[in-house]
């Protein structure tokens, strides 16, 4: 039997571009099981495990159930497409129902509901289930030329159910809001731009403003002089709305001298064109502004990531309480954020390894926010008597009460090291650590330390596993980005145990180096991996 990763990779190689599609013109609850089964059969035919098939079947069920239950205007047609390619899996469910207006708010509500076993809600778990199962989940309301909504799920080959990362922009035409009170001008310009852009035409500024609240354009072109709110008023009104001051804005006017008006130049526009304008000039101007705007945005994001990475870089002191700690880490360009926190007291050393998962927001930003939050929680709670489980219990209670943090999922591992060789371990949804005893002739074993994600069950207490180890024994901790390379489906760790077996007599530093080399080799097979990876080895009595 092939290890899970190889089996999956070979399935993809055998069917590089397999596609399942299904169109439903009538959709009721009773139709959903047959559609779900059809997709599950397709996945299993292509070698996907029952575990992954079950996850995607659940997500498709939740999306379709939602479309039956919630939209004010029910869908007349739902098109489902599942594509398998070397890049992974993409499930796209397109519908012509009325869109869900505030997807981010719904995500927040869904995650709260998923965690709230204390108040016992009887509905509202569906979106939370979808969000917590897949690498990328996103929703595009009225996104294509037929103004259909797209619910898209993406999983990469090596990370079939892990963290959420910021989704890439969909391949769609840029959207332009075009505003002019003259119907003929509006029609002419719409035709000029229509081939390359999705142009939404408005005869008044107020109409454009109204739609802006639910749909963001990539660029706005407005007439300067219009009855009611004029172009200047529109520019100023946009500046008060989310992202409105950064959306590229062009004035198009019959008054040539307008461009030189000091007032116009002060309100922040990107270009001024005089009517009549040729199709070539209009298209060239739009293209130039969109390209430049994209460059600036990418540069800002790049700098932002760079700064956050340097602030989050996981690290522990090398020799607390007679233990040797070795920490290795790689930071992904996008995706989840790993970070560490620690406190050394006379009684023990308390260490925390955390992995933040994002959901359509910037995961690095959330990791940074979480790190700051945990630091302050540390200051408040981490005293001499604070054990590994105590800290997670305090964290979980705090997360459950925090509107901001409950929108993001976090896994967390805490451990206390004692000078006499004891180690306490507690976990909040974190992959199990591994014990490698110096005397065990290479037999590694998982340490049972399961516990729910912080905030999932308010009021719950975490348990801790206590081990007493001998000099030379090592405990291997890792974040999901590290362990998932060895164990993509989360069931077996054969690829991890084999190299570990050869390391039982090595020092913690050397074991970390060997293991990291294997990790890098395995990861190269999965170039689309997009998550931070952190490895921490704690060796009792270890020396550099």
């Amino acid at each position: 039997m092939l290890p899970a990763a190889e089996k999956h990779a070979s399935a993809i190689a055998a069917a590089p571009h397999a596609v399942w599609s299904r169109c439903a013109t009538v959709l009721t609850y009773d139709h959903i099981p047959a559609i779900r089964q059809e997709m599950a059969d397709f996945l299993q035919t292509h070698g996907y495990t029952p575990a992954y098939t079950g996850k995607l079947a659940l997500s498709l069920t939740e999306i379709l159930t939602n479309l039956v239950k919630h939209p004010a205007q029910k869908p007349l047609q739902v098109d489902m497409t599942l594509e398998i390619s070397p890049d992974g899996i993409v499930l796209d469910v397109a519908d012509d129902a009325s869109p869900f207006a505030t997807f981010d708010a719904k995500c927040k509500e869904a995650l709260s509901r998923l965690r709230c076993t204390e108040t016992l809600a009887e509905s509202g778990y569906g979106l939370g289930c979808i969000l917590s199962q897949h690498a990328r989940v996103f929703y595009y309301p009225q996104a294509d030329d037929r103004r259909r909504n797209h619910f898209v799920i993406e999983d990469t080959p090596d990370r079939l159910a892990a963290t959420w990362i910021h989704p890439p922009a969909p391949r769609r035409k840029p959207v332009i809001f075009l505003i002019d009170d003259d119907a003929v001008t509006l029609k002419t310009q719409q035709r000029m731009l229509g081939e390359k852009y999705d142009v939404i035409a408005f005869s008044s500024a107020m109409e454009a403003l109204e739609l802006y609240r639910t749909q963001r354009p990539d660029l706005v072109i407005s007439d300067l002089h219009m009855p009611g709110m004029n172009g200047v008023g529109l520019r100023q009104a946009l500046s008060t709305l989310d992202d409105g001051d950064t959306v590229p804005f062009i004035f198009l006017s019959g008054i040539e001298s307008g461009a030189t008006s000091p007032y116009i130049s002060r309100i922040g526009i990107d270009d001024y064109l005089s009517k009549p304008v040729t199709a070539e000039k209009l298209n060239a101007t739009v293209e130039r502004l969109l390209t430049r705007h994209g460059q600036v945005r990418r540069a800002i994001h790049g700098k932002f990531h760079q700064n956050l990475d340097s602030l989050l870089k996981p690290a522990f002191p090398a020799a607390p309480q007679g233990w040797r700690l070795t920490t290795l880490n790689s930071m992904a360009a996008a995706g989840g954020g790993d970070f560490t926190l620690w406190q050394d007291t006379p009684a023990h050393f308390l260490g925390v390894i955390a992995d933040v998962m994002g959901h359509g927001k910037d995961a690095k930003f959330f990791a940074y926010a979480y790190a700051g939050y945990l630091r302050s929680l540390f200051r408040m709670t981490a005293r001499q008597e604070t054990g590994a489980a105590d800290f997670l219990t305090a964290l979980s209670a705090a997360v459950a009460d925090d509107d901001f943090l409950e929108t993001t999922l976090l896994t967390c591992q805490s451990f206390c090291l004692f000078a006499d060789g004891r180690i306490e371990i507690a976990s909040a949804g974190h992959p199990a650590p591994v014990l490698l005893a110096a005397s065990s002739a290479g037999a590694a074993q998982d340490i049972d330390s399961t516990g729910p994600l912080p905030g999932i069950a308010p009021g719950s207490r975490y348990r801790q596993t206590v081990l007493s180890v001998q000099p030379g024994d090592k405990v291997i901790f890792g974040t999901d980005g590290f362990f998932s390379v060895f164990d993509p489906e989360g069931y077996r760790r054969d690829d991890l145990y084999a190299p570990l077996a050869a390391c039982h007599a090595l020092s913690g530093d050397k074991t970390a180096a060997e293991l990291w080399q294997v990790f890098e080799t395995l990861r190269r097979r999965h170039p689309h991996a997009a998550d931070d990876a952190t490895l921490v080895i704690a060796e009792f009595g270890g020396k550099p």
Partner: protein
Amino acid sequence: MNVNQMFEVRQMPQYTLIRFYGFIDASTVSQMRPVLQKHIPEDSRHIVVDLREVGFLDSHGVGFFVSLLKMAHKNNGRIVFAAAKGQPSSVLQMVGFNGGLVSYCQSIEEACAGFEKQAV
């Protein structure tokens, strides 16, 4: 599947055993909800939910379980979910029905034994 084939209720001395079959999703929950309540005595305190024959569970199923949980709590009783496999087991873990606030046992025997011991 007829609604009566979707579940089975057995009244034991110390608890009510509900065994589900097939899918527990929006289509089956809407059929089961009104019928199942008639099969469970109103004063039923403790409930064991046997999931070994369930092949698929969605969020509607979870909501349905929460309503059973509330029923048991209302009667100052307990509910234990047991023996889920595969996809239903993953969903229960995801929503926290895995031994924290909501009791869960790997086997039916273990779940039933908990109530039987209590009675002794």
